[in-house]
């Protein structure tokens, strides 16, 4: 390099790079005359777009041309009335009205912690299990909490402890997926149910028909920004496996908070990221290899590649597992195989051993999914750089050593 400085390992010297960046910055500046002329017209309001309307606007409605005919009123009016009456009846307006949908649970995206807590509290009122009780608003280490007002056990120390689990999980995600971390997100409010029954009343239907585990104490509510805890989590020492459940749910909540509007990540990506991030890469890779290897060797893997990628929600996935259970008395024993597929896919797609192209494709696809783009199994595989779902899974298997 001419500047005499040591070039970087990739052969591009820092000075050379700075020079090119300087030139790039200079050439990407508008000309002075252009700036002045455009500024004048913009400020005066005399600048007009070259094309009518804004891209994305619906095209103008065109009226249908109906030839005029001389139909006598005594024929036209009753005929029109009969047609309107028929259309009205067919439209279903005379049918009994369907019951009003319950309000969408939990908060809209809000910025400040206090606003988020107030919004979470208002939406909680929609749930009989959580309604009608006053809540304490607490902010501990910058993390907003909603606690039942009678909760005498709400020790700051225990909240800090639980908050540190969540912070560690979030930090891991920021490191693994900085592009996703940079998406705008409301603060996640951690809400503690008044008792175990209230927690189960809200959470169990989300997993049905899969039974809720006795140790499940944390749940990321599908509407963004709320992590619900069962009150045992606040007991000193906590229940068994507390950190695993909280890490896992905190990852779901983190991801959901970064969804735009009603967009949600597909189940495999959601579960895969949560599992891989909460339990760590090497241990998860080895667990996935073992679970998938065993299920293959016994011929009991219930999923095709398309079914993993297309699984819409936990309930439908569990029902599919139940319908293919090798032993009827244990219908859901193969649900962990789905987790093994999901977590190994995410680990494989984010692994950079063979370069960054695979990870970049995954992050691009995930960004689009969080923005609301829905892709079927084949399109998902293509977006991730594979010919079809089978090719994606075959590459994943080779990576796992299966």
């Amino acid at each position, binding site marked *: 390099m001419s500047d005499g400085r040591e070039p*970087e*390992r*990739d*052969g*591009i010297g*820092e000075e*050379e*790079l*700075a*020079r*090119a*960046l*300087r*030139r*790039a*910055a200079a*050439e*990407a*500046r*508008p*000309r002075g005359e*252009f*700036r002045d002329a*455009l*500024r004048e017209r*913009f*400020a*005066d*309001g005399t*600048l*007009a*777009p*070259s*094309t009518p309307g*804004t*891209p*994305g606007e619906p095209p103008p409605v065109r009226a249908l041309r109906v030839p005029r005919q001389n139909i006598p009123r005594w024929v036209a009016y009753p005929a029109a009335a009969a047609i309107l009456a028929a259309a009205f009846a067919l439209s279903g307006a005379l049918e009994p009205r369907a019951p009003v949908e319950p309000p969408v649970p939990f908060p*809209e*995206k*809000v*910025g*400040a912690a*206090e*606003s988020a807590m*107030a*919004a979470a509290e*208002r939406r909680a009122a929609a749930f009989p299990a959580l309604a009608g009780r006053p809540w304490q608003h607490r902010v501990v280490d910058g993390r907003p909490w909603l606690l039942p007002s009678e909760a005498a056990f709400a020790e700051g120390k225990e909240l800090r402890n639980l908050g540190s689990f969540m912070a560690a999980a979030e*930090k891991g995600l*920021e*490191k693994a997926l*900085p*592009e996703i*971390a*940079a998406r*705008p997100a409301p603060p996640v409010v951690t809400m503690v149910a008044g008792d175990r029954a209230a927690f189960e009343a809200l959470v169990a239907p989300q997993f049905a028909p899969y039974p809720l585990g006795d140790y499940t104490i944390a749940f990321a509510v599908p509407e963004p920004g709320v992590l619900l805890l069962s009150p045992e989590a606040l007991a000193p020492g906590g229940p068994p496996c507390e950190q695993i459940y909280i890490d896992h749910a905190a990852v779901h909540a983190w991801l959901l908070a970064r969804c735009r509007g009603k967009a949600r990540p597909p189940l495999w990506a959601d579960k895969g990221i949560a599992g891989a991030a909460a339990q760590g890469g090497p241990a998860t890779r080895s667990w996935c290899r073992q679970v998938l290897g065993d299920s293959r060797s016994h011929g009991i893997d219930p999923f095709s590649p398309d079914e993993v990628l297309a699984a819409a929600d936990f309930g439908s996935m569990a029902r599919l597992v139940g319908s293919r259970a090798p032993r009827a008395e244990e219908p859901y024993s193969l649900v962990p195989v789905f987790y093994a597929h999901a977590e190994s896919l995410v680990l494989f797609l984010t692994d950079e051993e063979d*370069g*960054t192209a695979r990870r*970049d494709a995954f992050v691009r696809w995930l960004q689009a999914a969080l923005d609301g783009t829905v892709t079927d199994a084949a399109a998902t595989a293509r977006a991730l750089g594979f010919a079809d779902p089978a090719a994606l899974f075959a590459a994943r298997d080779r990576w796992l050593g299966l």
Partner: protein
Amino acid sequence: MEGRESAEAPAGEVPVVNPEEAAIVRAASRGDRDARARLFDRYLDAVYEFVFYRVGRRPDVAEEVTQEVFARALAHMDRYDPTRGDFGQWLGGISRNAIRDLARRARAPGSALASDPTPVLGGLPGGRDPAAEAAARDGEEALLRALSALPERYRDLLRWKYLEEQSVRDIARRRQTTEKAVEGMLGRARAALREGLGGDGSE
């Protein structure tokens, strides 16, 4: 066109992303000349640069699109919703649409740009200009072309690190991420640059 910190909002209301700017936009849409000039001064460079790299580094085309962006912004300023992002983000959306329209026009038969569309299409996804690529293989021009083809986030990172000489810690703070993540992204940015220069991208 980076976002800014969210402001406090009353309970239940969606906060305005940048209240000071929202007030300027309101005044501008009511016809306040000074407010319009302030918005223009704040965002012209960012819009132009955003467009410039996406149209194959052609100043004439960049000027055309930039003018279109500000014209559309002026015509539809009343549609800007300050709770959904700052004015720069809104202009970014208009810019993307204007570039897409330009690409459609460039591909349309009989368009003014159709006589020489390759440099324009070269800057758009899927477009290539093999002759220009071959000519630009050596020297600083090649580096410049590789830089302009990088994703914006990578180009920003390299600019902060090697042009503005910011530390990894400062960049991490600016991007609200960890130093380790910044180091990883810098490595990937350099690898992408190397790949753009014709290498295999590996260090």
